[in-house]
């Protein structure tokens, strides 16, 4: 088995937030990511799914060291990234890139699209004709080469996102973090960008970490999916398994909450409604972090945190009652 492109072990990120109450300064810790481990095989897509406060965005940024992790290990093709010198890291940046969510904010409004795409080539002192490479990249993402001299505001969201992808590809990376790359786009445009990403993966052998909250898109593009809640991975496994036979109550609730685009199926399937909202990551619940909203929580859930491990579902699940979940909760998956 070849080395996975990215291997994350026990990744933890804690933010310290200062606030004042009267004259005193109070420091609180936000446990954004707690002990997260995952593996991204070469040429594959790992989907990372979660709602607000899940920490999924932070995981993506920590892997690229755009945010410095508090603890843990991130290996890129076997090389440990944490603790690496800035200069060495800069060289490695050629191989790991990121595409951001907001197509309107991720491009410098004062630079032409061509200049934005050429920027990585400039920064990394790539030899050869940059203009040619920019034209090549524009074609690759489905735009025309003479769009290079235009400014971001002249394009639609979908086109700007393609520019973002072109920029990420400029240095021939092997791994790309896709941070909600289609969430800000219209649905009919999303499809085009998703297709593009899949084609590029096939053509160029790219590995993806696809971070999103939209389960349908994640399921479509991912080989493996990890579900996060309040900084922890609660379930991880092959995409189809997770959707058809999930083992964690949160996964099931999530699937139930996503409305399906078909009135017959949508109104016919059983609904699992969660109470309340995601607790604050400053004070996560003791034991299992999901217990405050879990329909099948028992006493042990408050006391002992369930480990993410194989429990008979065929993939790791972090729930004490993974084996009974299928019995106690209806299957929300559409046919």
């Amino acid at each position: 088995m070849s080395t996975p492109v990215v291997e994350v072990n026990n990744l933890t990120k804690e933010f310290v937030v200062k606030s004042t109450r009267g004259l005193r300064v109070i420091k609180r810790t936000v446990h954004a990511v707690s002990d997260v481990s995952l593996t991204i095989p070469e040429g594959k897509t790992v989907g990372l799914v979660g709602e607000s406060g899940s920490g999924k965005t932070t995981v993506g940024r920590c892997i690229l060291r755009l945010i410095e992790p508090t603890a843990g290990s991130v290996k890129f093709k076997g090389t440990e990234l944490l603790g690496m010198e800035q200069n060495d890291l800069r060289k490695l940046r050629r191989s790991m890139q990121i595409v951001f969510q907001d197509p309107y904010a991720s491009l410098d409004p004062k630079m032409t699209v061509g200049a934005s795409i050429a920027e990585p080539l400039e920064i990394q002192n790539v030899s050869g004709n940059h203009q040619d490479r920019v034209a090549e990249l524009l074609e690759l993402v489905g735009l025309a080469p003479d769009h290079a001299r235009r400014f971001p505001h002249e394009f639609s969201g979908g086109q700007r996102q393609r520019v973002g992808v072109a920029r990420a590809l400029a240095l021939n990376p092997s791994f790309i973090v896709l941070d909600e790359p289609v969430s800000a786009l219209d649905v009919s445009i999303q499809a085009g960008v998703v297709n593009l990403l899949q084609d590029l993966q096939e053509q160029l052998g790219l590995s993806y970490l696809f971070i999103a909250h939209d389960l349908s898109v994640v399921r479509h593009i991912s080989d493996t999916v990890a579900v996060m809640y309040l900084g922890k991975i609660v379930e991880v496994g092959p995409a189809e398994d997770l959707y058809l036979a999930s083992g964690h109550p949160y996964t099931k609730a999530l699937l139930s909450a996503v409305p399906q685009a078909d009135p017959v199926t949508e109104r016919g399937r059983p609904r699992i409604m969660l109470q309340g909202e995601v607790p604050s990551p400053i004070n996560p619940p003791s034991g299992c972090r999901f217990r405050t909203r879990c329909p099948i929580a028992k006493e042990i859930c408050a006391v002992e945190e369930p480990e993410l491990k194989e429990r008979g579902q065929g993939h790791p699940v972090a729930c004490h009652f993974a084996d009974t979940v299928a019995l106690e909760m209806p299957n929300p998956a559409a046919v």
Partner: protein
Amino acid sequence: MTDATLSIRDLRVTFKTLLGPVQAVRGVSLDVHPGEVLGVVGESGSGKSVSFLSIMGLLGKNAVIEGSAKVGDVELVGANQKAMRRVRGSEVAMIFQDPLSALNPVHRVGAQVAEMILAHQRDMSKDAAANRAVELLDLVGIPQPEQRARQYAHEFSGGMRQRVMIAMAIANNPKVLIADEPTTALDVTVQAQILEVIDRIRKEMGTAVVLITHDLGVVARMADRVQVMYAGRVVERSDVHNIFHESRHPYTRGLLGSQPTLGRERLTPIPGAPPNMLQPPSGCAFRARCVHAAPQCAGDLPELVQVGLTESACVRANELEALV
């Protein structure tokens, strides 16, 4: 239909901008009936939000609004400020995508709901209004409403704030509730809760609901009838089941086809992008992206016509049955 709560006829909205006039809404007509949920679906630039913001008088001075929008006998288009204020909040209410900006951060939440009540029911006492406010907070599913009423907006989470906004909107039992992307900014599990609140309220109070969204799943779950908008016009309208299974418009089909579904086959996007409303194309605005475009599509603006089980604004709607 004469029992329509809200009737819009030939609504047109044009914005005067630095680059010229932008035609955001180009002739929209619709009816909403008591107790029904009309789903209004469209992507950016479709005019779905602008249509309803305009009749509520919430657009800036650079918006030119023509046409008619009637709630009961009251005409909203061209109404003066006084008439608008009487209607807004009592006959027609609107909730938005971002509840934080609708709530005043320096007033307690209960007081804001009570203020809404008192604005339209002047003969109610302050105490009665305060009690009613707590009742409303309970109605929208906020736990411990007496305590929560005394809290401020920043102490509520996103979903809770949206519930407060709903409470404010239904405070005076409006005939129509317009919900403009009410759940887009919320987590999906919270979205499910909010949709459930809206559904329950409309069943209990008989309110007509206009649910504006880009999410076909939300529409599939909530709507009785659906209208699909593109480039400032309604392109298709029907019962929710027919829209999903018997659509007679290429854009609707395109939308449905581009949804990620089970399996990993390639998605079918709609090529191109919505047109520039500074210079809208002649005839059917969708023709530049339409697989079935034909010369007659470039003629007059197509009107909604009953074809099969839906009203469709596609001049080739009849033939679509044969072209899968």
